[in-house]
């Protein structure tokens, strides 16, 4: 494979292959930054991959009090799923179990889309008849009495069908510490990109997968081509100097957001250089036949 070199980091001439998804965004606020984050973190917990979690979700950006609808600190949370029905189900369950329950929380829509997803319109029944509907300024809210006052929740939020899931970078390094340093640099850079999330723990996944497996019923199994301990026994993608690979998976509100996030990640990792971080950057794809969106690394270089 042809490789470009940027600041001593080899860039594979390959592409990340991504898929169209359904997505929504909400703003969760709390009495302070800690509790706004706590509600958002709980809601986006166990939401790393649609394969096993039903959705992929994470905090897109933290918002200062001046930028939220109720003047309290907040987080913009994005949720991605493969179908509208699944997205609605995940949104409703996570909102009900994780945000409604979090002290002092409130929840607002933050996406205008082609269709509406229920927020407060679904949760209002928790009010057992004491819920209050309020419409003003072109928006509809539900107020549900709870033990610390009221849970304020906008009735609906928007759904976008323009979302893209599965943008990725594979960071290959000589040691685990270098791979992790590269991954952390990429995550820090991508966190600044609006409209893009990294759903895996801390934004990083170490168990990249391939489609299918030898066992019946396995829809995904280990990406043996990038597993360093298998490099002698399978058709490996890894050279003799690589001992650890980590992946950054990116979901974006639009294709442009994914591209911007990958560009930011590439920039951060190449800037870090091979001595401290990754010596090679690649990307995961399925030969280009499955996903509609292709992000060629060479087009996204800093």
């Amino acid at each position: 494979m042809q490789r470009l070199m940027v600041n001593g980091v080899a860039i594979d001439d390959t592409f990340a292959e991504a898929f169209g998804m359904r997505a929504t965004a909400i703003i969760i606020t709390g009495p302070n930054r800690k509790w706004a984050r706590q509600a958002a973190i709980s809601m986006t917990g166990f939401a790393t991959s649609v394969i096993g979690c039903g959705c992929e979700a994470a905090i897109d950006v933290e918002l200062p009090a001046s930028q939220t609808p109720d003047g309290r600190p907040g987080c913009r949370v994005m949720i991605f799923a493969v179908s509208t029905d699944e997205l609605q189900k995940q949104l409703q369950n996570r909102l009900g179990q994780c945000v409604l329950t979090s002290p002092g929380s409130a929840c607002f829509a933050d996406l205008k889309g082609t269709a509406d997803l229920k927020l407060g319109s679904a949760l209002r029944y928790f009010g057992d008849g004491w819920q209050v509907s309020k419409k003003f300024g072109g928006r509809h809210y539900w107020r549900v009495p709870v033990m610390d006052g009221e849970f304020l929740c906008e009735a609906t939020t928007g759904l976008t069908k323009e979302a893209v899931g599965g943008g990725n970078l594979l960071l290959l390094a000589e040691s685990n510490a270098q791979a992790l340093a590269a991954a952390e640099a990429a995550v820090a850079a991508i966190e600044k990109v609006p409209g893009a999330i990294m759903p895996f723990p801390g934004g990083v996944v170490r168990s990249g997968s391939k489609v299918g497996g030898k066992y019946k019923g396995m829809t995904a199994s280990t990406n043996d081509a990038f597993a360093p301990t298998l490099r002698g026994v399978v058709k490996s993608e890894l050279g003799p100097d690589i001992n650890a690979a980590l992946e950054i998976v990116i979901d974006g509100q639009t294709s442009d957001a994914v591209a911007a996030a990958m560009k930011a990640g590439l920039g951060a990792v190449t800037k870090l250089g091979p001595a401290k971080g990754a010596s090679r950057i690649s990307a995961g794809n399925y030969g280009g036949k499955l996903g509609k969106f292709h992000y060629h690394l060479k087009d996204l270089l800093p």
Partner: protein
Amino acid sequence: MKALTFTLRETPPERLDLSPLTPEKLASVDKREIGKIRLGMSKRGLTVSDLFKVSGSDLKTIVFEGGSERFDRVGTGLVDGTIRVVGDVGAQAGRQMRAGLITIEGNAGPHAGSCMRGGRLEIMGNAGDHLGGPLAGELAGMNGGVMIVRGRAGAFAGDRMRRGVAAVLKGCGEYAGGRMIAGTLVVTGGVGRLPGYLMRRGSILLDRAPQELSPSFVECGAPDSSFAAVMDRYLVADGILKRPLLGKAPGKFGGDNAVFGTGEILFRR
């Protein structure tokens, strides 16, 4: 295009029904016929040209230069465009309007914004009794939109209100929000006796604690309220109020328990 302007020649000698002078109704009238529209309510039947000098041609923007408390039913059923009255109006200004904007630069009589369903009605002066309220026999009053009275309102402001936001900035008379079904009534500057009397649902938002409440209202605590924050921001952003109304943790009275009992009076503590 210049606004279609009706300049009042002199104080009208009889009550007028100005409901024919809305953009929608005038759209189907030939320009030369406008002067012949009958407005007077007596058997004399004064016409537009008897009362006004007409100029301009933009039907979407109607201006009345000069007003009178005999100007009844201004902007009735407005569905589009704007109407501005440089002066006072009589009863039922903006009644049943559905969209558009009506600005009254003077005072308004009783039943201003009666049963309005949408749009924005702004009264710079005072308003009479039954602001937004239904006429006899109608089941619900204001049913949507935004109504602002920059001055004072009379008794029964927001009577039988069902939807929308009504704001009175310099206080109002007794029974504010009486028999409310739902919606939001904002009053700064104090309310008279028994606000929310027999309200079923809905919110009455005050800048101070009410003086005399029906005994069927009960005190309901004062936790921090995101709703109050969002409402305060809306009222300021929309130009209704200059400063936040409720604050972080408004007090609440729930009622009226003589009826449905899920209404509320929220007030700044």
